[in-house]
């Protein structure tokens, strides 16, 4: 009896604890850990998985017009082709080749690159919804900045782990750029590998940029800018230098070459001023591009994150981070009914 009486409070504790713990476990479905795991898994699937689908890229250009274009993507265990013909990217293992509007480009993973930060290093991640994307069951992950504003949403296939959609939002919460599968089939690893048109050393593919440890001091830029961390420096065959950064979700490159900007030879873009330095900003399918000249160097920053974060990095690179309010004028431009949940 005594034992029974003693057991009652213990049982009550167990019941109370279970009552509190179970909902906590359920709520844990939306925790940062799960969101981070899903995004990490999505990267692996993207690089090594087998799939074939149609991808749509939607973005708002410099005139405020919404552009949308579709292309195809096919991958089998680390060999992939995205796009078609003269505009296509090819990957085999740790090598990439791209033929697009520019000259053919080539990149290798190399041993000099640092590991990218974890997705949650600079962002607060949370699983916020379930929905169907490209006819697939998906979970939606929101990435919030330090101010609690949602700046990106990711839809991950619940069955395959494939990243199906990425949407980038501006500070007002409007979607400004989306890359998404509109149809996708998961294929067997036994499927024929996609025919990569370009192989190493042939097909007009030039040398890959070479990883370098140091640069002359006039080319030096900060190793950390906001949440971005320097992951590698590369010398390009034309002599230009690339500083490559990542923050766990987005990436950014600072390209530098000697000279002054030939403004008349550049596309129109969006004229801007970085505290007195003439610059031009482009909103493209790949992200935000900023060009300016400074101290005898032509500077080009390319980033796929939210535009204001790219501009904040530009402020750091140019040394204008603490000087003014130009960022507020430059970041949020034309908005429109271009939305995605």
């Amino acid at each position: 009896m005594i034992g029974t009486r003693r057991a009652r409070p213990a049982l009550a504790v167990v019941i109370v604890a279970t009552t509190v713990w179970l909902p906590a476990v359920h709520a844990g479905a939306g925790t940062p850990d799960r969101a981070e795991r899903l995004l990490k898994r999505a990267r692996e699937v993207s690089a090594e998985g087998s799939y074939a689908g149609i991808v749509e890229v939607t973005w708002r250009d410099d005139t405020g017009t919404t552009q949308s274009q579709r292309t195809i993507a096919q991958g089998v265990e680390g060999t992939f082709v995205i796009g078609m013909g003269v505009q296509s990217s090819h990957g085999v293992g740790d090598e990439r080749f791209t033929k697009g509007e520019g000259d053919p480009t080539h990149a290798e993973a190399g041993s000099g690159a640092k590991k990218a930060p974890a997705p949650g290093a600079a962002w607060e991640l949370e699983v916020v919804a379930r929905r169907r994307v490209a006819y697939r069951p998906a979970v939606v992950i929101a990435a919030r900045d330090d101010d609690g504003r949602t700046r990106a949403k990711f839809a991950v296939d619940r069955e395959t782990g494939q990243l199906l959609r990425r949407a980038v939002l501006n500070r007002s919460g409007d979607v400004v750029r989306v890359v998404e599968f509109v149809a996708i089939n998961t294929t067997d690893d036994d499927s024929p590998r996609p025919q990569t048109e370009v192989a190493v050393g042939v097909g007009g593919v030039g040398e890959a940029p070479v990883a370098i440890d140091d640069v002359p001091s006039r080319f030096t830029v900060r190793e950390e800018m906001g949440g971005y961390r320097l992951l590698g420096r590369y010398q390009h065959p034309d002599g230009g230098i690339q500083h490559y950064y990542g923050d766990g979700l987005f990436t950014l490159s600072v390209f530098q070459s000697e000279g002054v900007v030939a403004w008349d030879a550049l596309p129109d873009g969006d004229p801007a001023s970085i505290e007195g330095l003439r610059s031009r900003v482009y909103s493209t399918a790949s992200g935000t591009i900023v060009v300016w000249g400074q101290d005898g160097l032509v500077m080009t920053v390319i980033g796929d994150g939210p535009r204001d974060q790219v501009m904040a990095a530009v402020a750091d690179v140019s040394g204008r981070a603490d000087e003014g309010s130009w960022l507020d004028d430059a970041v949020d431009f034309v908005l429109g009914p271009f939305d995605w949940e």
Partner: protein
Amino acid sequence: MNDESLLSAYVDDELDATTRAEVEARVAESDELRVVLDDVRAMRSVVRGLPDVTAPAGFWERMLAADADEVVSLADERRRRRPRTRWSFAGAAAAAAIIGVAAIPQQEPVQPRLATLTQSHSDRASLDNDVVINLAGVVVSQDLAP
């Protein structure tokens, strides 16, 4: 930026329209700034007229490693030597250009190849991030080609 840097950026057409107009207004009002602007232009002209010379190995590193005490303020020097300005400066500029031309990069107009740079960035990003999401943008038309 100090006045020399500002005028240098002005000569190189690196200023936005507003700042450019401000500089022009200041130059119009200041004899001293006009002299500095003439000096900057003269230096550019001398340097551009000289042939390319490759800097010896380690030149930049040696120059940048030099003791900071040895750095001379051109502005201070200019004020101190004002009475002998034009010929002495022109001579010094020519001498400096001849002796140190290798250290002064040719300020050639450069067109950043935006499409190629974007591809390079996306190639790199796709190596440690999502392949499809990072590369789909560069295989659609973006009108970045020259």
